[in-house]
């Protein structure tokens, strides 16, 4: 490796450092009301409060994104074939977040321009879904992407409108996120940005874990750790229940 090459790399590295330093000039202090949500047998959903303090006296706007654990999802498309509607093509999205919600202190498009929103992955159209394999016979990729978003919104896991970020006093802010009962377990990451004049001037992060607890956790673990034993248990349970019902009805 020549000296000129080395200097090129060094200057490139310096450049990257400078860029990230300017992008995250200050770190935003944020936290969540829960760091762990337990799914128990009467779990019907939860709400989480994200709060923090704005940097500097200048004020500005707040944009927050809460993402659930990534899960591969397949989107299939039906087409008419010889009179029948059948699944003809599919696209697999390797990294679709299991949950996606945005909080903002105003309309997103006035706070940040499209390029900034894309760079910070803010908004349903900027989730950056990666697709792998899968033939896309007929119809564009964008339509599969839209179908995925539409279905996730229907399931209550993605939110088309941002939650409102409220300010308390001059520097404190908070925003509420709703978790439906079908939230996927895993780690959730919150990324919060303070924006001034269309530029991100400070950023912060927080995370929380959603997991099954109690009997729910025990059933799930048994099903995955000893699947055959679990299967035998399920069958025995069914046989006993059938016999029991028959025995009870015989007497009446």
């Amino acid at each position: 490796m020549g000296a000129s090459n080395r200097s090129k790399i060094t200057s490139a590295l310096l450049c990257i450092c400078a860029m990230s330093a300017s992008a995250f000039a200050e770190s935003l202090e944020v936290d969540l009301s829960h760091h762990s949500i337990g799914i128990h047998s009467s779990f019907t959903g939860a709400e989480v409060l994200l709060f923090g303090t704005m940097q500097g006296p200048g004020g500005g706007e707040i944009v927050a994104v809460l993402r659930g654990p990534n899960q591969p999802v397949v989107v299939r498309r039906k087409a008419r074939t010889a009179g029948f509607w059948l699944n003809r093509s599919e696209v697999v999205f390797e990294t679709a977040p299991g949950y996606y919600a945005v909080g903002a202190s105003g309309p997103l498009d006035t706070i940040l321009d499209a390029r900034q929103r894309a760079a910070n992955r803010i908004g349903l159209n900027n989730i950056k879904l990666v697709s792998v394999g899968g033939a896309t016979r007929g119809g564009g990729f964008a339509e599969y992407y839209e179908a995925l978003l539409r279905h996730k919104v229907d399931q209550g896991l993605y939110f088309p409108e941002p939650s409102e970020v409220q300010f308390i006093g001059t520097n404190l802010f908070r925003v509420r996120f709703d978790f439906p009962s079908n939230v996927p377990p895993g780690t959730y990451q919150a990324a919060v940005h303070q924006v001034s004049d269309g530029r991100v001037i400070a950023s912060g992060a927080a995370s929380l874990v959603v997991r099954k607890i109690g009997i729910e956790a025990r059933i799930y673990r048994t099903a995955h750790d000893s699947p055959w034993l679990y299967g035998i248990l399920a069958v025995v349970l069914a046989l006993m229940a059938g016999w029991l019902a028959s025995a009870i009805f015989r007497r009446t």
Partner: protein
Amino acid sequence: MEIYLPIAEMSVSIVLLLGMGVGVGFLSGMFGVGGGFLMTPLLIFIGVPPPVAVATEANQITAASVSGFLAHWRRGNVDLKMGFVLVVFGAIGSVLGVWLFRKLRSAGQVDEFISLTFVLFLGVIGTLMALESGRSILRRRRGGRRERMHAHYWVHGLPYKMRFRKSKLYISALVPAGIGFCVGVMSATMGVGGGFILIPAMIYILGMPTAMVVGTSLFQIIFVAANSTLLHAGSNQTVDILLALILLLGAVVGAQFGTRIGTRLRGEELRILLALLVIAVCAKLAHDLLATPVDIYSTAPFIG
């Protein structure tokens, strides 16, 4: 009251699940079918992921068919000997069915093949059953001559004759063995219990009395459903034991009531009701295939 289901990963109303269990269990005890044809779409409709719906309902069917089978057994309406022949050859058939399914899948187009075959099958069986049972109801109304117990044709000329005392039959063991085998192949390739195919075959090909068919079919379904539960739990981890428990509590009770009503009906009345049910399911499947869907896209977790 809501309960969180650990494998389906969602919360649902217990009362709703119990109600679904009772309804499907009732049909199971009355007609001797598993009821998966009704339970799968219902579970998917309330938001249970399809693989979990299919696997869990196999568990619930096991319970309902034990409950129904015992109720029919007490009334003397089960031909155990026939049942065993069907179960043994059904098991051999399902091994071939699994192999066939893999061949079809590697050739692609497996879903199309299954949907079309199933619709065709149900349509033909349902129509024939409705015509036959409708005719016998009319004949009885007119007070015509009594029917022969069953028709005799080439099937009854085959060798290896065996006596099935309960069903009042003396026929070649090859016939029930062949039927069991075919149903085994079909239930493995189409992912259905096979009650819809088995019951008409027992009535019209074997010539068994309708009352005996229901209990014997339930006996065979216990084995198919238990085997399917075990395989789904073992290889896919998709059996939700909590969901199954609530559904089967409803189903075992429903099956007892279904048996009571079913045994009070005449053979041809039971057959025409079953025929109508088969035609309704066929119409629903055909509608799904032919009508323009509300949404041509569907999403599912990708299992690679």
